[in-house]
């Protein structure tokens, strides 16, 4: 990555961190409801991979921990926050919520709540790309525990069999809710599991964005060149609980502190300072500006946006009737 790109990415990662922390606060204030899964600690994963890809063009799909992936693809943070507030201006018009952010215009194909559900959808998106002859790729970001679903294996088999242009990124944060990977999974290193399908893979540090980027470039190039799927495992850690109801009784504070010593944002910041490309004052200004933007624009937009109308409750269940004639009743529209 060029130094200018690194500075831009640092600013983005600060936004991603502060956005999530602000969600936490809004949840406590009961502005956000339902399940809320936050991303702090894992920022280098999404950013490192997407810097090696083409955000907005390549198709991205993920699970319920999806705000940052959406924003990285180009979704407006204001619309993502409005979605969390359940507003009509939200990215899914308030019908989706935190776990179901979508931005089709930026090829962010969504957040899904069923663990493992996106695996075959990602392969299907790749199948569509293959049929249409485009040079985009599909990127599927999921957790470590998702790999214990049957569709993981079904999908790897089909993706390899049909040489589909799909990159599987496993964000291995060592836990599935409160169960550590050693207690749920016979093989801790997930990339070993894909070898059986003849899919090339790599595992790397998911906290250092430079390392993620280098590995992701290889992975993305492999897939884009038409060689079929690739599996990239990123070793990472989520700082907060799985969702808001999680008090982290299943892991030690020492373990958490150890991971925080290698914080993805601070590591990048310090590297830029050492290189003379940034000062601490620059960084502090970045944080301040980000907080001001979140407060004055993102939160303000979400707060002031209208609720969906109850009259529109049944909108979006099925396709608009007029556009579906004559298939529905045999009569012209």
């Amino acid at each position, binding site marked *: 990555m060029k130094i200018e790109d690194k500075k831009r990415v640092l600013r983005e990662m600060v936004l991603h961190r502060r956005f999530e922390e602000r969600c936490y606060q809004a949840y406590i204030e009961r502005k956000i409801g339902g399940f809320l899964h936050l991303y702090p600690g894992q920022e280098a994963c999404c950013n490192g991979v997407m810097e090696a890809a083409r955000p907005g063009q390549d198709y991205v799909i993920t699970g319920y921990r999806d705000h940052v992936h959406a924003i990285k693809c180009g979704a407006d943070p204001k619309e993502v926050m409005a979605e969390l507030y359940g507003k009509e201006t939200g990215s899914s018009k308030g019908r989706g919520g935190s776990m179901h952010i979508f931005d089709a215009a930026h090829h962010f194909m969504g957040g899904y709540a069923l663990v493992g*559900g996106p695996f075959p959808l990602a392969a*299907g998106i790749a199948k569509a790309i293959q049929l249409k002859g485009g040079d985009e790729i599909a990127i599927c970001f999921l957790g470590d525990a998702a790999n214990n679903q049957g569709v993981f294996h079904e999908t790897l088999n089909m993706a390899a069999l049909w040489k589909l242009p799909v990159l599987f990124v496993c964000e291995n944060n060592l836990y599935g809710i409160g169960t550590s990977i050693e207690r749920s999974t016979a093989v801790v290193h997930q990339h070993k599991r894909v070898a059986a399908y003849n899919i090339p893979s790599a595992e790397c540090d998911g906290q250092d964005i430079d390392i993620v980027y280098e590995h992701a470039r290889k992975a993305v190039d492999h897939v884009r060149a038409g060689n079929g799927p690739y599996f990239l495992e990123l070793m990472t850690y989520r700082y907060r609980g799985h969702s808001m109801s999680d008090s982290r009784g299943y892991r030690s504070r020492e373990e958490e502190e150890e991971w925080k010593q290698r914080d993805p944002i601070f590591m990048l910041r310090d590297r830029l300072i050492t290189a003379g490309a940034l000062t601490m004052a620059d960084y502090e200004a970045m944080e301040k500006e980000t907080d001001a933007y979140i407060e004055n624009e993102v939160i303000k937009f979400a707060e002031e946006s209208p609720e969906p109308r109850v009259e529109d409750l049944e909108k979006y269940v099925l396709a608009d009737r007029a556009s579906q004639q004559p298939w529905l009743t045999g009569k012209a529209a």
Partner: protein
Amino acid sequence: MAQIMLWEAIQRAHDEEMSRDPLVICMGEDIGVAGGTYKATKGLFEKYGPLRVMDTPISEGGFTGLAIGASFLGVRPIVEIMSVNFAWLAMDQMFNSAAKIRYMSGGQIEAPCVFRSAGGAAHQLGAQHSARMEKVFMGVAGLRVVTPSNPKQAYGLLKSAIRSNDPVFINEHELMYNMKGEVPDAEYFHPLEGSDIARSGTDVTLFGYNISVHWCLKAAEILDKQYGISAEVVDLYSLAPLDRAGIKQSVSKTHRVVIAEEDEAPVGVGSEIIAIINEECFFELDAAPVRVHSALVPQPYNHTLEKAAIPDHEDVVKAVLKLFGKA
């Protein structure tokens, strides 16, 4: 108009739509090189090749999800699930992904997928190959469910399902693929909503769908010839949405109702029709509606027990006679 078999009608719909639109594809187990368990995709592999006629691994959840993902980008997959009993493995993707994507994305993404599957009891296939599951599908918001009773419907419903932007589940029947019937020579689209009056009558309405339409027609013949009862047969080819207006219209004419379904009774098509009658036209009834349905048992293997578990036209006749106090 040519007389063709139901499988040929399905094959023709595939062929016409695939030759028109390169984004229409089909997939399933043994549908390509082998030509399809029910021959419904015969010859397509040779004509359209492996990229568009996909022999899938035995991974119902996986390939159904894959089809749905492809449909997000405008591909129109027709998925054959060999037997509806195997569709349970694909239901997560059908219900959680296909049926909900439009709503939870606020209208941004749609899943114009077609899922075809053979249900129903054939001959002694046992508990895990004889289920009817239409009642499971018809209660899911965001999914259309249709079920053909003849080759013309099989052809026209599939054509419309492929064109529709909603996900459509087509419930077929193991015993009906070789049934012959007339299909128009010209291209024809059967509406996905509504119902057909398969036989007009004045004394009682027999509601059926898919195979039970044929029990009803046979029963109507007997009732007319032997008992002087004029039965109307309504073919509910659309199970989701059910044709409320059509149901009301026929009940308001005959004032008596028998519903025939091959499925078990609880939480079923019959229950739903009776609920609709209650809501739409309760005071038109001269007698309480009667359901004809299978026994609430896993399908037995033994021939005699299997016959005892599944209703037929004689059960429909008996139900009508009971309704008229003649039995």
